[in-house]
């Protein structure tokens, strides 16, 4: 498997007034194409920061982030937008759908930003929501909304899916469903999936586990035989 993402000596410093906070402190790691990666760490460790840097939502202070041989840290604003549109599918804790658009329309919204031929119904079917296509977010359960946002993220056929606590607002049964879906995306479609979570059990299902603390990498574990999400003991 080839390396698709590489962090080299990445620092991220937040300044507010005199207060200086090092949210990323000399972070180094690589992620291979199609890997199912879990990022673990206590609150405030810098997990979201890492994901936002990788997804081009935030700029690093120093170091290099290389995705598909491109240096993200050298991108202009326009290039970053383009990078987000084509390469990155974000999934957040709160489902973040456009409330005024139906499930189907939320997915097909992506037609406006990528040249990919998107069949919204097919994508919704792949997350098991074909029958809910015409419902508005407020008419869907939390799990269903999260599945719509996954559908929206994968519709673009991005290089990677970046998920920041995707099950944080769901009950555990629905959470397993979502994680299962994400693992399938990685196993079956070869999409690189990076999941930030508090739930250490998920580590057993990951190809790679990155633990961080105080903005630093604590350890990186590679699972030779990851379990199926569905087979984990929750």
């Amino acid at each position, binding site marked *: 498997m080839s390396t698709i993402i590489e962090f080299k000596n990445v620092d991220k410093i937040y300044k507010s007034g005199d207060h200086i906070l090092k949210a990323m402190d000399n972070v180094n790691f690589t992620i291979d194409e199609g890997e199912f990666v879990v990022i673990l760490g206590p609150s405030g460790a810098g997990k979201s920061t890492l994901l936002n840097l990788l*997804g081009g939502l935030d700029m690093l202070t120093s170091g290099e982030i290389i995705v598909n041989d491109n240096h993200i840290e050298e991108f202009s604003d326009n290039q970053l937008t383009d990078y*987000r549109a084509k390469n990155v599918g*974000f999934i957040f804790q709160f489902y973040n759908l456009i409330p005024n*658009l139906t499930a189907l329309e939320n997915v097909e919204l992506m037609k406006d930003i990528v040249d990919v031929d998107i069949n919204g119904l097919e994508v919704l079917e792949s997350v098991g929501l074909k029958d809910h296509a015409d419902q508005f977010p407020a008419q869907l359960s939390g799990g269903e909304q999260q599945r719509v946002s996954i559908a929206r993220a994968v519709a673009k056929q991005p290089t990677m899916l970046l998920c920041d606590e995707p099950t944080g607002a769901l009950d555990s049964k629905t959470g397993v469903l979502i994680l299962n879906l994400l693992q399938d995306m990685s196993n079956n479609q070869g999409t690189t999936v990076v999941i930030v979570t508090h739930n250490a059990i998920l580590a057993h299902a990951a190809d790679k586990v990155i633990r961080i603390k105080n903005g630093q990498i604590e350890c990186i574990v590679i699972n030779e035989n990851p379990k199926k999400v569905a087979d984990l003991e929750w």
Partner: protein
Amino acid sequence: MLKKKMIRDIRRHKTQFLSIFLMAFLGVFVFAGVGGESVGLEVNVDKFYDDTNLADGWIYSNYINDLFLEQVNCLGATNQMERQLVVDSIADFSNDPEITLHFVENNTISKFYLIDGEPVDINDKNGVWLDKSFADAKGLKVGDNITFKFEDYKIEKEIKGIGYSPEYVYHASQSSVIPDFSKLGFAYMSYKAFPGDTVPYNVLNVKFDGTAENYNDLLDYHMDGYYNSFVERSEHTSVSQFSEEIDQHQMMAGIFPVVFILIAMLILLTTMTRIIAHQRTQIGILKACGFKDKSIMLHYISYGFWLVLIGSILGLIIGPMTLPKLFYPSMSSTYILPSWNPAWSMNFVYVALAMILMSLLVSYFAF
């Protein structure tokens, strides 16, 4: 897809957006409507003045003989002139209507505008060409006879034609501002119809080059003492009354729309500010998805744009189609013009465009 979102957002805030739409519509509606009306008046009256060769000025004198004409001709600026005898008469009806008689030498300046009958014939001693408003008020027809009394004369003439005169677009008596057409009027006759031996011409209609002020100076310099007064076109009662009326309409066309447009822009500003503040999260989602800042901005700007665009197009169409029809009937009871047609001006489009541009700026400012 963002268009769908826009339409649903607009529907959710339909009261505000309906007000924006209505105010934008009303602004252009009134501007183009009253504008179409007043520009129409201007175009119609100018055409009337041109068709009838309305005088540029009137020289009043008691000695308008050949020598006088020669002198006026020598002023250089004079292009064309024609003398008339203008006298007040009483027509022979029970209410003693006041008819101003014009004994004309050629009917070349401030010409009679024929509606019915035959054209003015300078060799006709027995014919009279009568004010249509008066004829209508009295039920007079071509072929009828009418008698006028003035000074010691009493003349009876046959009505050969009925029509208008550019000097009587507005014609009211001293006693009332609103004309009563059964009590006053005018009539044109050939100088040959004058009952006396010589015609005591008292008005010289002139057409001249240059400004009225220059012409007045020339007259003053060369002919001081030989004439009583000079009236330039813009001082003529009928001309000035009508152009003041047009000015008032144009002022109305200017003020009301400004108010409507300002209200539209204010509502747009508050509505968009509120919507955008309320949708900060959604804006974040769109950005995370990879929407360009520019597309997101255009999305929010388009709310006001479409409404203001549709409002102004409707205003541009409906305004000139309806408002003139509303105004002209009451106007035509005071003013006499051969045609009442609304006119179009590119200014209407410019104002609509300016408002659309303003809506873009306002939405941009809200963003």
